[in-house]
């Protein structure tokens, strides 16, 4: 059995909306192995983004525990969480979320800045990563000078800046046409082949089935089913 990288144990996330309680996630337990390519699926409101935020330590669970590399992160302070995010997790968002004031290169350098890495190393690392996503000739461009696909590739380069163990992608192709979306997923596949764990939220079943190795299906905040790929076929666990 391979190593676990993320473990959710009886995790609940409950929001208080005025008088009513909204159970965004309820008693979800998930084990994710290192090197897996996970797709989290479900209709909107099923809690998939909430789950991703919790795994990405952007949010804390109301109940239950989350382990990242066997470390319980459910009760850490914001600064400790920031440290973990910076070192172990790379984010890719549907809206790319690049900082508009910064060039492509500066955006990629940003996560390295918060790790206290000096400027020369930040620059060479950013150049290397932008080469990897084939944007070597767009380094000094600002986000608004780049196409959607290019922006998302900058975002991928940024997510990779600190050599994270896990890449979290929230509908990474949601704002892209099919062809550019394919290209983005190609990069994610390449990373996964090199051993990076990928967790992707999507509502596109075809996309999930084509690229993922494991699919978690959520409905109304609860886990509905887990599917594993064996060759071309899928098996429900």
């Amino acid at each position, binding site marked *: 059995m391979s190593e676990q990288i993320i473990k959710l144990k009886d995790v609940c996330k409950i929001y208080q909306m005025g008088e009513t309680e909204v159970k965004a996630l309820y008693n979800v337990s998930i084990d994710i192995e290192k090197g897996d390519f996970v797709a989290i699926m479900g209709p909107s409101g099923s809690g998939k983004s909430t789950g991703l935020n919790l795994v*990405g330590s952007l949010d804390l669970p109301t109940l239950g525990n989350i382990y990242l590399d066997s470390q319980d992160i459910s009760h850490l302070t914001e600064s400790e969480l920031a440290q973990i995010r910076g070192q172990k997790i790379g984010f890719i968002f549907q809206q790319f979320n690049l900082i508009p004031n910064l060039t492509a290169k500066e955006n990629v350098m940003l996560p390295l800045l918060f790790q206290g890495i000096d400027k020369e190393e930040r620059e060479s690392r950013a150049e290397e990563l932008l080469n990897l996503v084939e944007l070597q000739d767009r380094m000094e461009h600002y986000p608004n000078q780049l196409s959607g696909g290019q922006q998302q590739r900058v975002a991928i380069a940024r997510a990779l800046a600190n050599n994270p163990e896990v890449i979290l992608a929230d509908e990474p192709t949601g704002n892209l046409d099919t062809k550019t979306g394919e290209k983005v997923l190609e990069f994610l596949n390449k990373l996964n082949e090199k051993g990076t764990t990928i967790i992707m939220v999507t509502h596109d079943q075809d996309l999930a089935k084509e690229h993922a190795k494991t699919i978690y299906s959520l409905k109304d905040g609860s886990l509905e089913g887990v599917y594993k790929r064996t060759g071309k076929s899928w098996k429900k666990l």
Partner: protein
Amino acid sequence: MKDYFLLAFNNLKHRGLRSWLTILGIFIGIAAVVALISLGQGLKEAITGQFSTLSADRLVITSAETGFGPPGSTAVKKLTERDLDVIKEVQGIEKIISRLLRVVKAEYNNELNFIFTASIPNNKEGAEAVYEAFNLKVEKGKKLEAGVKGKVILGSDIASSNTFDKKIEVGKQIKIQDKDFEVIGILKKSGSFQVNQVILMNEEDMKDILNIKDEIDIIAVQVSDKDRIEDMAEEIKRKLRQDRNQKEGEEDFSVQTPVQALSAINTILNIINLIVTGIAAISLLIGGIGIANTMFTSVLERRKEIGIMKAVGAKNKDVLKIFVIESGLLGLVGGIGGALIGLSLAYLTSFSANSALNTDLFKVSPSVPLLVASILFAIIIGIIAGLIPSYQASKLKPVDALRQ
């Protein structure tokens, strides 16, 4: 840390116009402070320059009511040689000078003017004391020495075309009370208009043309121990009262001590300073509120950006640092700009005031500590104004910040 400065600077640069508008508040505040304080010191110098006759070791005795003004033909008893002798008896006098100060009819190039004329004492020591006391410097020509008759020297305004249409050069003849005098010197422009608008002539000449017998307009006493000056003033008053057989409070003369006059000047200056400080405080407060306002808006607008920074590993203190540096930079730029504008404004004001009044009394006193202090102050205001918004920004939960 340098990288955080660059990042903060980048953020401000990209908000261009808005950053400048924010800075405007601090700009105006600091400019007002620097301009007003620089001019305030100039003003103080201008006012004290007017009282250049005042010195901590000098008493001035005049007959009552006339003061420095033109002595009218009133029934007021003039000071006389006798009074001079009475005063000389007081212990501790180092020097004593008697002078005449009158308005005369002066004619030059067929143009008539009425001008103050002051006497130069007939003894060498007294003449030198006059030059020294008023800090008189001859710019053209030479000094009017004691005992030199038939010659005058002119204040700079009299010689320039301000008084007579035609400029008066050294060597020209000027008719005073229908008698010709040769101009042998012109005084350097002074801080005091009394000096700039005077004709100086020999005491005997003056008595002669004005038909003065035994009269003195002003007696100036220099004391040897300035700590005793108040006591000596009392002593002189007592002696003169005794001699004139007058009761206390009924004197027809006055003994002016420098302390009285200087304390009056200080009161005026303190009021001016208070007003200046008030205006400055208000404008800086407004500047600070402007920065706080911009930073609050900036935090609201950049929620998502804060979320992104946190998602890529920025700790609370990193975010705090960036925002505090930004507001500090706003203060810094506002401070530098304001200091420069304020200084130029002070020079501009002094230049226009001087050309309008045709003097050089309004001097700007630029002070490096003032400039440095106001820039530092602007930075501090920026930082303080930015603290709460920056703290708010740093405390944003990443998941909330990203949800937009």
